[in-house]
């Protein structure tokens, strides 16, 4: 499946690194762009994008499809997304399992869905429509969440796995989000990872988070923590090699530090592939 092609390890393309990436062409497997930041008419963003696209595979990651919203899909936005995809020919297009708009207004955040049959049908139908318009499969990412609903009848992992089957889409598994949500809601993050259908996970995200009182917040402003590295190792053992991105969107470090984090992900991946899960369980 095209959403499962392996491109190795990537980083997010952020303005603070534009010059170094363009001039230095560091060895990076691929670059991720936030789609909305490049859905513009011209200027520096489009110039940078043209340049990097000539040298790297690019993945488009969006935040505004609002796949779970009960508002109609915003067709003008979808057209712009399709136009950008035509220009970029990205390796993947992804967005989130959430809702972020209502009544014609946008909240610019990733709000949680109830995991019900109604929501599943709703989101699956919308993913299918988006894929029809884009002419390609997309990847859906699990979000960090801070609340759940009493009337949910499915777990998040069952919901996501079933959505991928029904809509025939890929999964972008954010391992940090699994860890954050597991802490916030008291489930075992390995249960989530184990429920992911192997052939559907086409991309992995790793990021840092913060502690805010009793809750963990997905802030993308820290290095990946040890527990998330451990969970990533288990994820690779479960899913095999999957293209992996280090997300760092706030308090962004120097490019060298970011690449160091990416190299660490390569190391953990190699270690996980070399040591299957059964062997790791037998180790003292």
């Amino acid at each position: 499946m095209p959403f499962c092609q392996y491109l190795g390890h990537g980083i997010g393309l952020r303005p603070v690194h534009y010059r170094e990436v363009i001039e230095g062409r560091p060895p990076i497997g691929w670059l991720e762009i936030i789609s909305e930041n490049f859905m513009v008419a011209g200027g520096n963003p489009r110039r940078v994008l043209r340049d990097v696209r000539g040298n790297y595979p690019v993945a488009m990651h969006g935040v505004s499809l609002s796949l779970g919203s009960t508002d109609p899909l915003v067709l003008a936005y979808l057209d712009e997304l399709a136009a950008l995809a035509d220009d970029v020919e990205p390796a993947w297009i992804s967005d989130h399992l959430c809702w972020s708009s209502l009544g014609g207004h946008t909240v610019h955040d990733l709000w949680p869905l109830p995991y019900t049959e109604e929501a599943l049908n709703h989101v699956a139908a919308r993913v299918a429509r988006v894929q029809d318009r884009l002419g390609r499969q997309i990847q859906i990412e699990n979000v960090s969440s801070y609340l759940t609903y009493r009337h949910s009848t499915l777990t998040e992992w069952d919901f996501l796995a079933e959505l991928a089957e029904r809509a025939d889409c890929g999964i972008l598994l954010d391992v940090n989000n699994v860890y954050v949500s597991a802490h916030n809601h008291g489930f075992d993050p390995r249960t989530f990872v184990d429920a992911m259908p192997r052939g559907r996970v086409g991309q992995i995200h790793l990021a840092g988070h913060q502690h805010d009182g009793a809750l963990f917040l997905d802030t993308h402003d820290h290095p990946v923590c040890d527990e998330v590295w451990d969970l990533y190792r288990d994820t690779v053992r479960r899913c095999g090699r999957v293209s992996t991105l280090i997300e760092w969107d706030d308090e962004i470090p120097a490019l060298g530090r970011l690449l160091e984090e990416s190299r660490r992900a390569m190391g953990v991946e190699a270690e996980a592939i070399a040591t299957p899960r059964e062997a790791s369980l037998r180790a003292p």
Partner: protein
Amino acid sequence: MRPEEPPSLRLLQERFYAACTSWTVDVPDGEWLEGHHLDGTVVDDDRATGATRLRVYARMFLWRITDVLAEGFPKLRELLGAHAFRALAADYVRACPPAHPSLRNAGRRLPDFLRGHAVCKAAPWLADLARLEWAHDDLFDGPDAPPLTLSQLRARGADEYASLALRLVPCHRIVDASFAVDELWQRLEEGSPVAAPRPAQLTLLVWRRELAVQHRTVDAAEAAALRFVQRGATLADLCDELSQGGSLDDTSRLVFALLSRWIDEDLIASGP
């Protein structure tokens, strides 16, 4: 008592949206959740109450928009200070909730909103400053257009000059102001102490030249010429427009001066 039916997805989203976009620090948790019929919907547990959990979203909604506005209006933020800017952003987002999928448009209505806001009663020039900042922000990633060069102009035959279509590059704005915000802008750029700008009827031309957005003041004659050209005009049209009441020599000098400057500043687009 019969338990309440779970809300439909639509109803849940309406309640969630209303709760998060109306939240303020002084509303009691219980009252907040009950007021939006979410007390029986959101799970609370030993780790955190439902209100604590929902509040994460309410706070993030405000913070994210505030951060984006602060990036787009750095001078306004500097003049107001962080606290007053946050309060303004909160008022703005409630009055003008974002309606565009991209955050880049979040500040589009702030200058007009600011004009009617309490902070502008004491400092009415802030609305002019915000309008200028928004023009800069908006043009940053606006459409590209190659500018007409002097050599391209010279390559045309003299008989083609009259029919030359004058088209301003799309990345420009003409901004009217009632205060000398250009001077205020300059002092803020330099890090110099600032005072309230003097009242002055100004017209500012803001445009992007290659990748850099810049502005300058224009006098009344140039402002009128720019607005005329904005509507679509040939060089002959512009000459006719500017000749009214003046001698042929004066008109020629004025048109030559304007055209030279506009070409020199990459303001005229090449091509059809």
